């Protein structure tokens, strides 16, 4: 760490020689930054499936459907977090809460519908993957609601 920045120690603690836990704040490391001046850095994305994304055309394959895509405003791939919650009347398996990706519906290991988020150098993208093989049952997402909480950080993913 360079000889600049600021440290604040707890009352009664030596700021020049702080022990671990004695600091209120330290600029030793940069903060993980969400730009509060943009509309995309902290966003709730509410998705309603009025229609069902398609199943794979050939059994045993995965069908990928782009559900939403929006510009993040950077010229590189930014770091991001995505948290999702699900509202569905379906009785088959589903994740009511997930981070990164989540199963929206599944009957057995032979079928699933999964939602996930990724970024490229211009956009944040939300996809649904569906898998179905001979022994599976199609997963109908009609009338399903998903709420995603998405953070898009200033920092890049390094490639």
């Amino acid at each position, binding site marked *: 760490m360079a000889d600049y920045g600021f440290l604040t120690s707890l009352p009664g603690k030596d700021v020049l020689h702080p022990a671990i836990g004695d600091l209120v704040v330290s600029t030793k490391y940069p903060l993980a*930054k969400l730009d509060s001046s943009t509309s995309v850095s*902290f966003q709730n994305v509410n998705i309603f499936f009025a229609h069902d994304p398609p199943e794979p055309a050939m059994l045993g394959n995965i069908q990928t459907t782009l559900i939403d895509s929006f510009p993040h405003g950077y010229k590189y791939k930014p770091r*991001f977090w995505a948290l999702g919650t699900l509202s569905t009347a379906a009785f088959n398996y589903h994740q009511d809460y997930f981070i990164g990706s989540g199963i929206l519906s599944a009957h057995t290991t032979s079928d699933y519908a999964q939602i996930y988020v990724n970024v490229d150098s211009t956009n944040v993208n939300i996809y649904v993957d569906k898998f179905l093989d001979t022994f599976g049952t199609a997963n109908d997402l009609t009338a399903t609601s998903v709420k995603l909480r998405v953070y898009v950080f200033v920092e890049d993913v390094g490639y």
Partner: protein
Amino acid sequence: MALPYTNLKDNSTPNPIARQDVGVKLSQPFYDVNTTSDSNLVFSSGWPSLAVAASGICDGSGKIAHNLGFPPFSLGWANTPATMVFPDMDSTYLYSNPGDYVVAYDLDITKDVDYAYTAASSVVQPYDNGYGIKMAIEGKNIDSTDLRDFIVHSRAQSPLVLAVKTEISADAANVAIAGSPTIQYTNKVGYQTWVFGYVYLNASSRYAFAPMYSQAYPRLFTDGIKSYLTYFDNKASLVILRDPMFAPTTRSVTY
């Protein structure tokens, strides 16, 4: 989600760390910095922010050194497509797939901590570039318009730490209920927070991420409010993070 266990006991919660009366804080225009609530602050050093302590791309063996001396809370992103990944960690390395980009935050998952909750602003505040606080990274220009060039910039905030719960504060009665040691946390903030679980594995001497969708050990059970994690090798950790102190925007999508 129906939680299998409904009568587990939460980990103990010592007096939460309150907002400190020392440090640096900056209020929104026209708000008294001495008395206003945190939701009207532009910046406060008292917020339990997340700092990036190390980062990089995992090598061909799927690891990268962070050398922090403790297992840090970590996240990562795969390469093409850039989806989220969840590394394992020990006191020296992060472990993920070769080529994944991973970040170690300055948060020790072996240390119990609780922070007092202060509500964020519920209104999207317009940004005033007329004043604030900023500190550039060594070698970077203080007048840079790239926020990556700053250690601290009051235009930006991080997610905040709400709690870290480990086996140290676990309730002993959970063993009788769950059959195994189990840590549990229930957040009181009124919304679903970010919850990450880790269990220590003696076989590999590292903390392994516990996914939520798993038919094998380890597995984290959470609905974002109540979370619990059963562990077998003596140590485990729940990391609970909350939203930053500014309001989100909303986007509605109909497919």
